[in-house]
Structures are given as structure tokens and as C-alpha cells.
């Protein structure tokens, strides 16, 4: 074991990864900004759904643009490897801060990026082919500890495998849900659209997607199958980019998968880049291994990374300790690489009453954006948060200790809708915890699988 952590490998793969990550994130921010989503998602809304334990993360009004600017600039600095440590810390903090503002914008790939950025802070990704390496000979190295690259590979494996395991369920494999609903919506695509009229296509896509997720990290790891695997990566993610509104995610995964390629492959990329910007070859060949500040630093980092990866394995399985159907209650659903698994929609009519006989039916559009309302109406923890917002709002209007009830109705993967929350429960009195929420009504149906 000890000898494994002594092993070194060429720094080129991590340098390429750093450049790709920085540029793609910069592109993501520019895209996000230009579509007006900063305003739409973080400035326009009157209320925000904070994460449990992160209530101190507040929207910043117009200052939100500054956060995005910081995020974009630090992404560029990471790409070119200038002031890398500071830039990577800022990138992680600014990106994560944005994601923590509102639960209704949660996407698994944002969480993926946050976690990757967190790891990147501590990895010597600036040792090679970076401005820092040119400016500071102490940092400069062309060999780095092997575990530095392997930790990213392991993390990517965890992501794919759990995404695959999540698809091993009866809705996905036996009913081809929700693809059976989503694919016909794309039947007006030029050339290929007609194929989505066939139900069997949804089955093929479901099974292929599941097998893809479960096998791709291993096929990428193995030298013999790597090229084939990468072609599969390209086809799979380009297809998802065409079919679903998932933004930059496909391109980020296409770039990330490169990390599995050999050092020789990445050296060639770097050499090409170097020739392009006229950097002499001797800058790249140093024959020097990167050293952490001290042996203790190195040990602490290794322990921290092992712990981090263990947490990443445990987190997606935490739903096992909750009773009830995961897709219905969503207790333990987030941060678990459960992507594209549910067509879930609902409506939630809130009623606020007080002891003096005041009563009002809440118009959700006065409090929430369309996106927030859509997310809230199917997710119990957000329903509770919203109920508390309403409680406080109507208390401010003179309601005496307001009671909040919800008449909810949710459909999941084509099942006829039914109430999600017990309409007799006063949500104003319930508190949000990590323990099971007994006021979520039973699903009364089975989705077999992991």
C-alpha cells in the first residue's frame, strides 16, 4: 500500500484535465450569463430554497453578477495555471456558493463540478504546463504522485457506477420509464426524430444507458478497450446533448473521460499546444518529481482523499436507511448521481389558516418562479421549506400562529397522480431534519431495484 502512494506518473494528464476543466467552466459561466439565467434564477425570485445546514448562503442581489465574474475569472486562471492555488480555491467557493443559493436549481452535474473543484484545490495540477510552473521553479515538475490522477479516476468511476446502479430498477428497465415519455417528445427532430415513435427504442436506450454507465469506467481503464469506450462516450453524450436540455454536462463528461488515457497521449496534446503557442520543448521535459511541502502534508492529503472517496461511496446509499420508496419521498435522492430517472410532476395548493378564522388559498406564483414551483411541488423537503416561508409571511400579515396545510398531487413515471403529503398535517409545526418525514403519504406501489 505504502509503495502505491510512492509511485509517480507523468503530470500531463492532470494538466490537460486542468485546462479542459477551466475552459469548460469558463464557457459554462459565459453561456449561463448570456442566457440571462443569473437574473432569472438568482435575482428575480423573491424566495430561495436553501440547503439544510447552509441557510447562511443567501442570494446577493446584483452582487450575484460579481460572484459569477469571480467564478469565470478563476476558471480562466485555473486553465492557464496562474495563481493556481488561490484561483482553484476561489473557483470552488464561488461555484459552490452559487449552487447552494437555491435547491430548485440543483443538478447532479453542478454537484459533480463542485466536488471536482474541491479535489483540484489540493492536487498539483499547476506543476506542469502552467504559468505558475514557469514563474516558480519550486512548483514546476513533470512527474506527480500517481494517486493524484487516480483519485479523479476513482471519483469518476463512482459517479458512473452509481448512475448505472440507479438505473437498475423496474421503471427504467421493465417499463422504459421515463424515456418512454421523453423520447416521443423529440419525434420532430430532423432525420432521426421518427425513430422515437417506437416504444422499443425507449427500451433499447434504457438498457444501453444502464449498461453504459455500469461498464464505461472499466472499459476506459483497460487499455485494450479504451478507444472503443471513448467512442461510446462520444456517441452517448452527444446523443444526450441532442435529446435533453442538460446544457454543458455532456461536454464536461466527454472531456473528463480523457483522464483515463495514457500519459503518452496527454503529452502529445501538451506538445501540440506548446508548439501552437511557441513554448520551447525544454520547458516541458524536466525529469523532476513534484514534492508536497512536507511528508506530513502528503500523508494528510492522502488520508483526506481516501476519506473523501469513502464518503462519496456512502452518500449515494444513504437512502437505504429511510423507509418508503426513494423516488416518491426523495429522502436521500440528491448527491447520488440519480440522473434522468423520473418524470415527476405535481401541483400543490397551500392553505394558510389561523385560530381567529382567517383563511387564504395561496397563489404560488406570487411567491415562486415557475421552476421553483415545479421543483417544490414534487419534493417533500421543499414543500416543508415553502410552508415555513408561508407561515412567516402570513404571520407578518397578522395571522395568529398560522397553520399551513397542503393539498398535493403528484404523478411519477406515468402513474396516475395522487396526494404526496398528508393534507391534515399542519406543516407550520413540522421541522426539517434528516430523519424520516412521517407526513409523506405512502407510495402504495413498488419500484423494484437498487
Amino acid at each position, binding site marked *: 500500500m505504502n509503495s502505491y502512494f510512492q509511485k509517480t506518473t507523468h503530470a500531463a494528464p492532470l494538466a490537460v484535465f486542468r485546462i479542459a476543466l477551466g475552459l469548460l467552466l469558463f464557457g459554462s459561466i459565459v453561456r449561463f450569463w448570456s*442566457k440571462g439565467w443569473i437574473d*432569472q*434564477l438568482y435575482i428575480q425570485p423573491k424566495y430561495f430554497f436553501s440547503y439544510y445546514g447552509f441557510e447562511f448562503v443567501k442570494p446577493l442581489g446584483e452582487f450575484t453578477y460579481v460572484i459569477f465574474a469571480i467564478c469565470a475569472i478563476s476558471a480562466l486562471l485555473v486553465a492557464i495555471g496562474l495563481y493556481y492555488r488561490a484561483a482553484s480555491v476561489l473557483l470552488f467557493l464561488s461555484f459552490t456558493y452559487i449552487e447552494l443559493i437555491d435547491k430548485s*436549481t*440543483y*443538478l*447532479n452535474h453542478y454537484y459533480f463540478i463542485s466536488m471536482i473543484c474541491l479535489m483540484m484545490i489540493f492536487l498539483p495540477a499547476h506543476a506542469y504546463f502552467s504559468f505558475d510552473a514557469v514563474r516558480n521553479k519550486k512548483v514546476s515538475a513533470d512527474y506527480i504522485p500517481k494517486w493524484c490522477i487516480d483519485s479523479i479516476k476513482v471519483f469518476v468511476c463512482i459517479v458512473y457506477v452509481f448512475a448505472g446502479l440507479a438505473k*437498475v430498477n*423496474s421503471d427504467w*428497465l*421493465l417499463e422504459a420509464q*421515463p424515456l*418512454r*415519455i*421523453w423520447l*416521443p*417528445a423529440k*419525434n*420532430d427532430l430532423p432525420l432521426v426524430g*421518427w425513430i422515437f*415513435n*417506437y*416504444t*422499443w427504442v425507449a*427500451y*433499447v436506450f434504457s*438498457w444501453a444507458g444502464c449498461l453504459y454507465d455500469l461498464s464505461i469506467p472499466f472499459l476506459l481503464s483497460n487499455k485494450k478497450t479504451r478507444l472503443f469506450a471513448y467512442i461510446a462516450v462520444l456517441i452517448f453524450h452527444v446523443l444526450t446533448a441532442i435529446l*435533453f*436540455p*442538460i446544457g454543458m*454536462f455532456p461536454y464536461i463528461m466527454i472531456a473528463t473521460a480523457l483522464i483515463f488515457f495514457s500519459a503518452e497521449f496527454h503529452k502529445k496534446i501538451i506538445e501540440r499546444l506548446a508548439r501552437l503557442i511557441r513554448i520551447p520543448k525544454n520547458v516541458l521535459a524536466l525529469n523532476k518529481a513534484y514534492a508536497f511541502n512536507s511528508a506530513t502534508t502528503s500523508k494528510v492529503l492522502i488520508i483526506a482523499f481516501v476519506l473523501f472517496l469513502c464518503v462519496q461511496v456512502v452518500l449515494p446509499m444513504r437512502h437505504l436507511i429511510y423507509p418508503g420508496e426513494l423516488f416518491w419521498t426523495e429522502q436521500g*435522492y*440528491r448527491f447520488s448521481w440519480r*440522473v*434522468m*430517472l*423520473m*418524470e*415527476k*410532476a*405535481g*401541483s400543490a395548493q397551500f*392553505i394558510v389558516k389561523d385560530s381567529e378564522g382567517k*383563511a*387564504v*388559498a395561496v397563489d404560488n406564483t406570487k411567491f415562486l418562479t*415557475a*421552476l421553483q414551483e*415545479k421543483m417544490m411541488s414534487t419534493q417533500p423537503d421543499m414543500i416543508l421549506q415553502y410552508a415555513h416561508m408561508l407561515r412567516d409571511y402570513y404571520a407578518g400579515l397578522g395571522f395568529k400562529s398560522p397553520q399551513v396545510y397542503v393539498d398535493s*398531487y*403528484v*404523478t411519477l*413515471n*406515468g*402513474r*396516475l*397522480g395522487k396526494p404526496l403529503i398528508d393534507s391534515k398535517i399542519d406543516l407550520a409545526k413540522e421541522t426539517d431534519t434528516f430523519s424520516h418525514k412521517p407526513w409523506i403519504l405512502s407510495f402504495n*406501489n413498488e419500484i*423494484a*431495484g437498487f
Partner: protein
Amino acid sequence: MTLSKEYRLRFLVVFATIVMMSCGGGNSEPSPADNGKDRQVILAHWVDNIVLPSYDNFKVKFDVMKTKADVFKQTPGVPALVEFRTAWVEAYLEWQKVELFEFGPADQTTLRNFFNIYPTDVAGIGSNINDPTVNLNLPASYARQGFPALDYLINGVASTDDQIVMFYTNATEGAKRIAYLSRIVDRMNTLITNVISGWPSYREAFITKTGLDIGSSFGLVTNAYVLYYERYIRSGKIGIPSGATIATGGSVNPDKVEAYYKKDISLSLAQAAHTAARDFFNGKDVITGVEGPSFKSYLDALGSKDATSGTALSVIINQQFTKISDKLNGLGNNFSQQVQNENQPMLDTYAEMQKLVRLLKVDMTSAMSITITYTDNDGD
């Protein structure tokens, strides 16, 4: 992972089927063009065989009303008033068959705001009569025009027909009053004419935007349709008068019924609107009466059904439409009296309508995969 024996077997069967299908292809199935999932066919059917003929039918009735209104304007008298009123009832009933088309030209004009916002603003009508140049486009004017304002002006200004005629023949005020009456009718004529003439140039864009995203025609129509049923049939016609909505605090509002001053047509208006909504769901051709491409045919083509009972979603929705029709049939002609004398049947009707709203708003839109926002989404 827990898997019962039954599920293990089912996984195996589906897996084997897929392997065979992937190898053998599925070319023996019917061509996708005629299996009902072509949204362009539905959009074209909506425009050509439902929306436009419905507008034409309405325009015929409306023109009759306008003619009668002009006669009344020229020679105010009880016979002219009675004929005007009859034509108004006919036109109002026909309006119920087009109010749901608040998309495209009607949406740009916000036609409903100028045709059917009630209860009408009696005091506002009074002040508008005295100010012939008042801007009728402003939101404050919505409830001072359209069918509800006419309802007041030809049924509500006095208790007998003789007195109503005298309201318009009054030596000092009559001319202003009849001018306002006439202004409203002319304005309605201009608006509906604009909407109808706006369709031919909009048609092409309408039927080619075949997506299901927020700007698509299918999305527009679905949202307008569901909103109409929820807000203007369920709440407007039944919920608010009966106090079924919490917003009314549970107390009845006999003065907030549709056609309050005419008194005896609130049921027929509600029935006409409900039937129009149902016919639209089923794609009933307005001229031939035959069902065509529609929400129903699309849901059937998608195979949308309740997973537990196996019943098709379109059947469940139609059953709910029938339940509501039955409830409506049990109500009296005059909702204003109904809510005061026996409100429970109104509340029961509302409850059934609420169930339908959910089926349309949640189950139907989810089954059709209609998106509501532009932003990225990974389906969770």
C-alpha cells in the same frame, strides 16, 4: 438491492426481448406517421377544423347581435330590446365555445379580458357613460365592457323592459347611454374581427412549431387550455359563486355568477363552456362532429395509461368530464339562486372539476412531456 423472484424473471424476459429486437429490427410495425404521434397533424386539425370554424360560428351569432343592437340604437323600444336580448343570449352561448382559444391572435389581443370579465363593474359603467373618450384598453375597464357589461345594460338597469327602454330614451342621459352600449358592441366587433383575420398569417408558424418546449404551439395550447378550465370554468363559473374556493372564505357570492342580470342562463353558459372544453380534448371537428387528432388521440398514441389499473388516461379524463356533466345537469338555471337555496350541488360540482383540473394539469402534461422552463434540467 432487493429483487423478488417475480421481478428477476421480468427483468430477464425484457432483456431477452430487447436483444432480439435490437438484432431483428422493428420494421414490421406501422409507419410512425399514421400512429398519432405527429403533432403537426394535431395542430393543423385544431386550427382548421376547430378554432377557425368555431370563430366563424361565433361571428355569425355576434353579427346578428350587432345588427339587433344597431336596430335598438336607431329605434329604442321593447320589441327591439327583446330581439337584442335574444341575440345576446345566442352570442354569449356561442362565445363559450371560443373563449378557450386564448393562444395566438386571441392571446395577443387578450380577447377574454375585453369579452367576459365578470362581475361587471356597474359604477364603472356609469362613469364610462359620462366619459365617451375613456380608454377601454386599461385593466380598470375590463369589467366595464363585453358580454357582462351588456348583461347589465340590457337586463339590469331597471326591473321591467319598459323601464329599461326608458333608461335609453331619457331626454338628458339617454343618448350617452345608448352611445356607450353601441361603443361596446362595436369594440367587440373590431376585436373579434382582428383575431379572426390574424389567424391566416399565424397559421403557418403555429403548425410548424411542433416541439413541446415553452414556446411551442403544443405547449401554448395546453397551458391556455388547462388555465382556462381551472380559472375560468372551475373557479369563475362555479368556485367563486359557491364559495368553494378558500379565497372566498367559504361564503357564497350570488352576485358573482355569470350573466347575473339575465339570471336564468348561468347553467347553460357553464354547460356550453364545459362541453366545448371536452370536445376540444377529444378533437371533435366543429363542422362534421367527428373526433379527430387531439389530446385524446395523442395520449392514446403515446399509450398513456394508469400503471395500476391499466385504464387509458384519455378514458379516465373522459370519465371525469362525464361526471362533471352529470353534476351540472343537477343544477338549476340560475346559479345565483342555486348558491343561496342549495349550495351543496355547486360544491360537489366544484370538487369534480378540481379532479379534472389535476388530471389535465398534472397527469396529461406530464404524460405528454410538456416543459415549463428554459433552463437546464437533468430530470430530477
